[in-house]
C-alpha cells in the first residue's frame, strides 16, 4: 500500500503546483505509515524527478513516451492507473489543475474511487473516516467531505500547501511503460498554443497578483498594472467588467465565474469588490485595495487600503517597489 502523487512537468521542470502535491502526498503517507511514490509523464527531466526526494517522495515512476509531452487524457489515465496498480496505491494525489482534475475524475471511475477536488487541508483519519476539507461555493465556504471508497483521490488546491524541501534527499527514478496504443491518442490535441509568458508569471500559480478594474479607466493605462507586476514578480489579472468590455483577455478574469486565485498577496487597483469578485480572491493571504471610493466594499475584505485614484497611486507603488532590495 502506498500514496501515489501525479506530477506535471513544464519545460523539463516540475510545476510548482505539483511540488505542492508531492509535499501533500508525502505528508499523507507519513500519517498513514507508508511511503509516497510519484508518477511523472512527458516533459520533465530526470534530475528534476530525483529532486522530488526533497518533498519526501521515495520513488518516481517515469513514462518517457514522447507522445505524452502534450496532454492526452486517456493516455495519462492509463499510465497513472498502471502505476497505481503496481504500487497498490490507496490514496492518489493530484494538483487541482485542469489536467490533474481531469485525470483524477477519469481515474475515480476507472478505479472505483472517491474523489475530492479543490482540497485545502490534509485529511483527518480516525474511526475509519477519511475527511478532507475542500473549497465550495466559489470561495465563499469550505466543506468537510468523507471519502467513503477504498481508493481515495485528492486534487489539492494551488497555493494551499507550503512546499517542504529537505535538501540532498533524492528519489530513485524507475521507468514505467503502460503499453499505450493508438486508441488512447484518438482525442489527442492537434495543436497546443502557449501564451507568451516570457518574463510573465502564470496567474494560477502566482504568489503575487496585481489586478485592475474599471477604475483603471481604459486599457491604455494597463502599463501601470504590468509595471508593478514586473517589479514584484507578479502575475496580472482583472475584474469581470474589464474582460467583458474587452480591455483585457478573458483568461485574466478573476472571480466567481473566472479564475479563483489564492496568492500570498493580491493587489486590487480600481476594483470595487463585488461579492462575485471577492469569492475569487478571498483566500489570498494578504489583500491590498486601492479605490477612490472610501465606501467600496472591497475595503472590508482588505488588509491594507488606500483611498485614491488608481492612476495616481500605482506610480507611487511602482517607485517604492523599485527602491526595494531584491
Amino acid at each position: 500500500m502506498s500514496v501515489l502523487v501525479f506530477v506535471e512537468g513544464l519545460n523539463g521542470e516540475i510545476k510548482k503546483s505539483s511540488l505542492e502535491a508531492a509535499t501533500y502526498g508525502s505528508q499523507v503517507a507519513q500519517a498513514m505509515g507508508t511511503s509516497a511514490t510519484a508518477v511523472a509523464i512527458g516533459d520533465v527531466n530526470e534530475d528534476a524527478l530525483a529532486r522530488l526526494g526533497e518533498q519526501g517522495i521515495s520513488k518516481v515512476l517515469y513514462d518517457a513516451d514522447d507522445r505524452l509531452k502534450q496532454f492526452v487524457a486517456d493516455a495519462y489515465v492509463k499510465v497513472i492507473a498502471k502505476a497505481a496498480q503496481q504500487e497498490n496505491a490507496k490514496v492518489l494525489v493530484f494538483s487541482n489543475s485542469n489536467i490533474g482534475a481531469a485525470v483524477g475524475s477519469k481515474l475515480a471511475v476507472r478505479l472505483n474511487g472517491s474523489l475530492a477536488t479543490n482540497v485545502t487541508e490534509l485529511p483527518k483519519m480516525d474511526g475509519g473516516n477519511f475527511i478532507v476539507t475542500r473549497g465550495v461555493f466559489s470561495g465563499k465556504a469550505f466543506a468537510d467531505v468523507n471519502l467513503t471508497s477504498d481508493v481515495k483521490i485528492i486534487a489539492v488546491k494551488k497555493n494551499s500547501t507550503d512546499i517542504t524541501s529537505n535538501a540532498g534527499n533524492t528519489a530513485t527514478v524507475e521507468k514505467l511503460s503502460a503499453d499505450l496504443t493508438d486508441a488512447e491518442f484518438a482525442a489527442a490535441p492537434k495543436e497546443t498554443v502557449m501564451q507568451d509568458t516570457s518574463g510573465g508569471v502564470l496567474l494560477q500559480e502566482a504568489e503575487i497578483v496585481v489586478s485592475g478594474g474599471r477604475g483603471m479607466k481604459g486599457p491604455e493605462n494597463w502599463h501601470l498594472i504590468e509595471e508593478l507586476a514586473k517589479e514584484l514578480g507578479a502575475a496580472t489579472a482583472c475584474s469581470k467588467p474589464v474582460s467583458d468590455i474587452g480591455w483585457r483577455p478573458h483568461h485574466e478574469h478573476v472571480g466567481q465565474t473566472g479564475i479563483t486565485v489564492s496568492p500570498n498577496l493580491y493587489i486590487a487597483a480600481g476594483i470595487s469588490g463585488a461579492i462575485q469578485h471577492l469569492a475569487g480572491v478571498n483566500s489570498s493571504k494578504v489583500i491590498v485595495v486601492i479605490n477612490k471610493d472610501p465606501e467600496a466594499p472591497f475595503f472590508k475584505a482588505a488588509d491594507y487600503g488606500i483611498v485614491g485614484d488608481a492612476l495616481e497611486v500605482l506610480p507611487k507603488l511602482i517607485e517604492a517597489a523599485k527602491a526595494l532590495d531584491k
Partner: protein
Amino acid sequence: MKILVCISNVPDTTSKINFTGDNKNFDKNGVQYVINPWDEYALTRAIELKEAKGGSVTVLNVGEADAEPNIRKALAIGADDAIRVNAHPKDAYFVAQQITAIAKEGGYDMILMGKESIDYNGFQVHNMVGEMMGIPSVTPAFKLDMVDDSTARLEREIEGGKEVVEVKLPFVASAQQPMCEPRIPNMRGIMTARTKPLKVVEPTGAEAKSEYVNYSKPEKKSGVKMIDAENAGEVIKLLRNEAKVL
C-alpha cells in the same frame, strides 16, 4: 444533431452563503436560484448549433422539484424538451451516473455542460461521464464548432495556454467563456416553454462515493489598515516588513 445539455440549479452569484443545523446543511432561506452560469454557455452554444445545423436540444437536470423554474427557463431560452432526474445530487459520481444512464438511452451526439457548478465547484462530472460512456471529454472548452457532420473542433484551456482538439461525435465537453454570449429568454420563448415537454424520471440505483459532513466559512479579516494616498509607497514597506509577503 441531438444535443444533451446538463444544467445545475445553483444559488445566484450574489447570494450570501449560510449554513443551518450545526453547519451540517446549506441554508436555502432567502436564496435565489439560477441556472449555473457556466451551464448557460453550454446551453446557448447548443442552441446556436441547432439553429445552424438542425437537430434538437434536450436539457437535463439531476435535482429536486424546486429546480423546475430554471429548467423552464432553459426551455424558454430555446431548448426543445427537458428531463429531470428526481434526486438530490449527492455528489459528482452520483450525478455522472444519472447523466450517463440518460445519455446512453437517448443516443446523443454531444453532451454539453458548464465546466463546474458554482456551488460545489467539482470540475468532475464531464470527465466522469466521458469515462463512463467511453467517449472523449474535452474540458474546459471555450470554443466549439463543427468541422463536418461527424467532427467537432474545440479549443480548451490549459494552464498557460490552449489546445486545439478535433473529436468525432459523440463526445462530452464542458463550457466556459467566451464560448458564446449567453441568451436571456424573450416573451415568445417564455410562452412556448410552458407547453414544452418536461419529463421526470426516477434515478438509477447509483451510490454516492463521498459524504458532506460539515461546512464552514472563511475567517473574517481582522480589519483594514488605511494608508494615506500621498504616502502610498509606504504600503510596499509594510508588505515587506510587517506582512512579510515581499
